[in-house]
């Protein structure tokens, strides 16, 4: 089975830790993706999602400086944009309504991210 890919995907990054956001950005660019953001807090994330309807996928840190990212996640799910939560929490911290959303434990591995939100190969 050919691998999924993020090539030319516009990927939103929501991550409050600058260093991690930056690292993700670099890794995504290395994977051929176009990074939207990154943004560090929920308000910025929501604003960005509402302003940009060309988002193909999103990587969301579950905990943004004490605020949970879920309102942003709901907006994206509504648009059927594939998302992945990155989190340091146990699974129990994620409400059950997001049980189908992929999760990636920090520190994240790009391989897993791509598996979660990458486009399936065409054909």
């Amino acid at each position, binding site marked *: 089975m050919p691998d999924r890919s993020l090539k030319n995907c516009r990927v939103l990054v929501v991550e409050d*830790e600058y260093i*991690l956001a*930056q*690292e993700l950005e670099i890794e995504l660019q290395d994977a051929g993706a176009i990074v939207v953001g*990154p943004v560090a807090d929920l308000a910025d994330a929501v604003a960005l999602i509402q302003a940009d309807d060309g988002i193909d996928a999103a990587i969301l840190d579950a905990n943004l400086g004490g605020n949970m990212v879920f309102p942003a996640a709901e907006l994206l799910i509504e648009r059927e944009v594939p998302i992945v939560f990155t989190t*340091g*929490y146990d699974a129990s911290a994620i409400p059950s309504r997001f049980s189908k959303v992929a999760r990636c434990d920090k520190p994240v591995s790009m391989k897993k991210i791509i598996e979660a939100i990458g486009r399936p190969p065409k054909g």
Partner: protein
Amino acid sequence: MSDMSDCHTFLDRQRVLSEFGDFVLDHDDLDEILNEGCRLVAAALGADLAKVIEIERQSDTGFIRAGVGWNPGVVGHERISLNERSSEAYAIEKTEPVITNDIAQEKRFEFPSFLTDHGVVAVVNVPIFLPGRIPYGILQVDARRPREFDQEDIEFLKTYSMVLGPVIDRIQIAKERRATDALRATDLAALEVLQRVSTELVGEREPQTLFDRIVEAAASLMGSDAASIHVLDPATNRLKLVAWRGFHPDSARFWEWMRFDTRSSCSRTLGTGERMIVPDVDRLDGRQEDLEAYRRSNLLSVQSTPLKAFSGQVVGMLSTHWRKRRELALDEYRHFDVLVRLSADLIERLHATERLRESESTLAAALESVPVGVAVIDLSGAAVVSNAEYRRFLPTGIIPSQDSSAPARWQAWDSEGRPLKPSNFPGARALRGETVMPGLEMLHTDAAGHETWTTVATVPIRDEQGHVTGAAAAIADVDAAKRSVEALRTSEERLREFGQASQDVLWIRDAEQLQWQYLTPAFEAIYGLSREEAQSGDNFRNWLDLIVPEDRTRASEAIKRVHQGEHVTFDYRIRRPKDGAIRWLRDTDFPIADMDGKVRLIGGVGHDMTELRETERRLEVLMEGIPQLVWRALGEGDWTWSNPQWSEYTGIGFEDSKGRGWLDAFHPDDRATVRSAWSAARANGQFEVEARIRRGRDSEYRWFQTRASAVRDEAGLIVEWLGTSTDVHDMREMQERQHVLVDELQHRTRNLMGVVRSVSDKTARNSSDLPEFRRRFRDQLDALSRVQGLLSRLNDHDRVTFDELIHAELAAMDGAADRVILDGPKGVRLRSSTVQTLAMALHELATNAVKYGALSQPQGRLKVDWTLAGGTGGSPWLHIDWRESGVVVPAVRPVRPGGGQGRELIERALPYQLKAKTNFTFEADGVHCTIAIPISASMTSSEVAHA
């Protein structure tokens, strides 16, 4: 007349008589004889006409019986009146001939017109007498010419008449005899018919055959063309056509059912109870359908005779029908009426038989349904009538004493237990005239060897003279009853043994005097008193005296309630007379009622509770001393006891808590959980639930862990529940907080790992060799660990303050403290999420200052100021001013290895992560960096104000 002619005449007349005599000898038909007589006499007298008139007494008329010379329509038809103006009547009265020589001249008499019609002029009437001078009639000679009948004529006629009399008499007698003979033959035939029928009717033939024979006989007796019989159907009170002959089938169908109220001819018979005779149905004013039925069968005449039972009730109807008009004389019903009587009797008998059969079958059914074997036996001991239950015990139907095959099956014993001989069995005794009631217990063994206890009762049956003619016997199966009595006896025996062995006192008192009838040995052990002593005198009173005064009324009341039918359990204390010791007893007392429901006896079980009470008491004391809420319960949480702490904590007294009252103290949202936990408790043998209980003092609901364990008896059955409720509120809160902290810690750790990884990557990229990497990386890890050290000692409510952070960072720069001035308020609290990044930025600034800036040169100075100022939107901002001074800056600034990292943090990471506003510049004498960070309002504690 001349002699010669006289002589002729005489001879002629002699010859006439002789001829007539011959004729008479050869004939026996009166009309023929009389007609010949008329012819001869007319000829002898030279007359044209003669006739014989027969007297008909009833109508006082004379019937022209015979004659000669008359026109048709006279002889055998005409009648003349024999009134006072009649010559014939006159002649009969005078008993001698009367002569009218000329009718026209005759003054004495009037003559019938047909005489003159025939031209009669002269008439001579000679009376005819039968032997014994019985007038029969008149011989009349009529002449069409006037003439004088002379003496000779008269004499001749007289002679002739005298001959006629006996002739007529003889012939009449002969005729009557023949008629009588014929009648007798008819009667005989009828009687034969009747005899045959009556013989058949008493025989055992099918009713239908009998009805057919009756109909046949009716037709035969009445000479009818058709006949039918209807019989009363008692159920519907209608008559049913049961047999018929000579009907068209349609008519038969029409007449099949007759009611008393319809207007048919037959129904009228029924209505009146009289015979109905209809000579001609066409003249009957009946229903059209009825007439149609007659016509269909081509019948014109009918008689219907009711068949009456002995009581007079109409039970049927026998009818005969003719095709011609027919009207019978009463006399002709003679034989038929006998048949009617026979038929009525038959019907009555059939009805009686039917009723008997019904009542017999009812009786038989009743007999079969009784659960007792019943039979009537004759003197030989054989059953005349019996039911199946009887035959179950006596298949041959013969009583054992008379049946050689049976005695072995039956056994009975006298009062001393000796076997009875069959001759003394109840059946045999009854046939000897004895009554065996209410019966003898006998053991029956059936063919399969199965034994059944029975009670056999017998009564002799006597005739009017008092002689025994048989007996009635009843066999009742009492096996189950007897065996249950046996079983009861056994069980009573066992109970007694049980009572003897029991450690509890078992006793029975009579309900009236309340005296002990039964008292088990355990009494002595518990009460310390012998049973003889206890049972002497009024032992109820004695017993009450043993009870301590405080409990005496209660005990007495309890017994009273048992007397009224209640089951009562009550506790009381006795003081043993022997040693004065107090013992706690629990009595469970119950009424024992008789069949009528009246309490005859009072039973009781007394249990010595003393040990238990003491144990309980100790336990209660223990329970009252511990800080938990303790309680005891039965069933599914019915509290029986709770320690004072419960009431003290909840403010709900025990009385309100017992049963399910305690539930009120639980939080309404938790009550369902608690109830369902109780429902499951029995199966688990364990009750455990965490629920909120209201504290009475402040109505606060606090979390309690409530647990109960089943207390079981030796058989493993749950006796009661022992439960505790423990306040776990604080523990629960702690646990919750811990949970949050663990989550947070995980989050931080994982973020930190990400940061470390990233820092290591970057450091590796920016280091020229491994020693440099090691130095730089260790340095950065140190900074991170300092931050973690600050963060880790905090709890939820505490925050790292900026002054702590800057002191900690600069303290790490050894030996430069005197060249550093810090100025700003204490207690500016930082959000945990901001601490790490801010610390990293400060670390970079400090590191650079130590390596290349103010702290690398002796004359260099560092001043860090910070202030708190209101920003836009109301949130305060922390303004940090990092100013290095007195630094000799080389003309060409060396490229600082890794130097980009610090600026990146300040210029990019802080704005990104903390929404900070930063500025970083190289002034002529050193670095100047400003950082402004939004601080949430709550982060500014009161300490800020006076800092």
